[in-house]
């Protein structure tokens, strides 16, 4: 099956046609929600640039997207784990594939709070993947997308970033930075025509949560992806998905400190 085109082929004339239409660029493309996010775009003949660490996974994803109608899929196997590296890689990718119409930054790891607190190495690695790399990617995307004056940068934060809780504040605080960073960048770009969407999912049934029981509170990745696409279409600023989390997090955020600190969740 001739299903992946290497990035260096895209400058060929005969590939120009493939790069027409909506361009979706996904960082952390092997995350559970990213694939569900990409599928409806594939059905509308978008073309894709997918970045993730594992090439085998990228090949399987691109086969799925081609089968569903994607015009073209370029895959880049790259480990997104440093700020400068992610910045330079993103610039290089954009130079070859052009700036995206829609960019999704989806990489992230959850980690075990206790384990992270006792392992500076693991804590640093989590912050590299969840914070440093997305910041580097956003810096590079901003430069190229502002020039074109359109498009969306959608970034995964989390409901966990709304308030640091005893059970997962390491992960939560990494997402708090994303929430603040995307909020500020959105304000900065407001007149440029580029929207920045902050995505705040609750628990979603993906590989990230395989170790947790699949409870009714856990959302299905397809529903979450649909919420994100809807929010992009409507140029929204922040999307809670499923939407009931907006209400729950409003309450959690407004609990008086004296009560909140006694909660063990």
């Amino acid at each position: 099956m001739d299903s992946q085109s290497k990035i260096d082929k895209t400058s060929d004339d005969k590939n120009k046609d493939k790069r027409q239409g909506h361009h979706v660029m996904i960082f952390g493309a092997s995350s559970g929600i990213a694939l569900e996010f990409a599928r409806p775009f594939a059905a509308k003949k978008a073309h894709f640039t997918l970045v993730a660490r594992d090439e085998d996974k990228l090949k399987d994803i691109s086969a799925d997207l081609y089968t569903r109608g994607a015009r073209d899929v370029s895959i880049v196997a790259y480990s997104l784990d440093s700020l400068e590296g992610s910045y330079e890689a993103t610039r290089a990718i954009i130079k070859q594939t052009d700036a995206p119409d829609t960019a999704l930054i989806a990489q992230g790891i959850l980690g075990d709070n206790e384990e992270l607190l006792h392992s500076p190495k693991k804590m640093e690695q989590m912050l590299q993947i969840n914070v440093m790399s997305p910041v580097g990617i956003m810096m590079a995307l901003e430069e190229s997308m502002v020039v074109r004056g359109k498009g969306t940068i959608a970034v995964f934060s989390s409901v966990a970033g709304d308030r640091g809780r005893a059970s997962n504040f390491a992960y939560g605080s990494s997402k708090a930075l994303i929430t603040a960073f995307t909020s500020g960048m959105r304000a900065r770009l407001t007149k440029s025509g580029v929207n920045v969407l902050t995505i705040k999912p609750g628990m979603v049934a993906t590989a990230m949560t395989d170790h947790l029981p699949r409870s009714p509170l856990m959302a299905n990745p397809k529903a979450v992806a649909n919420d994100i696409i809807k929010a992009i279409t409507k140029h929204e600023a922040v999307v809670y998905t499923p939407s009931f989390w907006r209400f729950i997090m409003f309450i959690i955020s407004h609990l008086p400190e004296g009560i909140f600190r006694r909660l063990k969740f």
Partner: protein
Amino acid sequence: MPTESWGRIKGQERDSKFIHWRSDANDMSHWKGPVLAHGLGRSYGDSCLIKDGTLLKMSELNKLRHFDPETGRLSCEAGLSIADLLTFAIPRGWFIPVTPGTKFVTMGGAIANDIHGKNHHRRGTIGNHITELELMRSNGERLRCSLTEEEALFRATIGGLGLTGLILSCTLQLIPIESAWIDAEMIKTKGLSDFFEVDRKSDKDFEYTVSWIDCMAQGEHGGRGIFIRGNHAVGGNIKKDYAKQKGFKVSVPFDAPGFTLNKLSIKAFNTAYYNKQFAQMKATKQAFDPFFYPLDAVGNWNRIYGSAGLLQYQCIIPKDRIEDLKQLFDVIAKSGQGSFLGVLKRFGNIASPGMMSFPVEGYTVSLDFKNIGKKSSELFHELDRIVMRAGGRLYPAKDYLMSPETFQLSYPQWTEFARYVDPLFESMFWKRVTTRG
């Protein structure tokens, strides 16, 4: 919480793992104990469960691999459900060649059980339409199996109950359709002889045939039922019509109290269902879901039987053993343990490539029973005796009660099949029917 099968039998796995990528199974050595793939858990008995091992949850390994719109060949990962397959294929004018009575099964599960459908007389089993499959063995070998490559393993894997290794992906030949509708006809049959006549007449002109039998009716009404037959309609706008068919779901959120289904309520239901249709024959245009998957509209319908669960009995009576078929229905009617669903269907003579495949030419009967313990197993063993006498067999995907002797006598090829079973793979069913005493 242990994984349950559709009949609410509880598994005893030590651990379970979601398989998201084909590469997740490259190294099986770090899993605890023996392993077994588990799709959407629609098998009724214990063939999808494991004891003291690791259950590999496959339903999220569901990506498409390739589709050729000219030939209708589709390659997909093994966890893709028939529901998702149809959502992709129907708007493009293609349909799955063989479908069971629920669309919530994975392709891997469909292959492992070599599923059949209402068109067995025309197209055989799903195994007749699988052109290739990708099998991961516990020794790290990843094999492409088909009728021309690794043929023996291909035949063993079709209907192989997931025991020959982990099915990662498959390629199947779809059938072209023009319309999102089925031209369906429902015909009242007064008894089994009536059924045989309608069945014979329908064989040539109808892709799909099946009959619902009122298993509570005795005496002069014995064997009465409704014969359902249909063909894919022609014309219309398949894409638009299919979009219109989006069904809604009613789910049974709680277990019904045990007394909901007693002899009186089932009898009332069956009589009402039979009498619902007054005319001798009714022709309608039906959407796919109500025609193929009526029970899927009620999510978790297995819960109406309460927490004790349900047992399903599905057997084949070979074609020349009509008297045994009659006796089977007699025994069921007299037991008073029958159910909403008594289904009778004639299997044709198309042989499956599958070594352990269930269908052979003859009549298949399937019925739901509420699990009432000893009385259920006594009835089942009485039915087993009739089936064995007739030279028939039971369907492992539905079974929880057959004895090792019954299994080994009716599937004599099991010893040959056992040579292809992967040493790391095991199921509660396989242990039960291959261990004596």
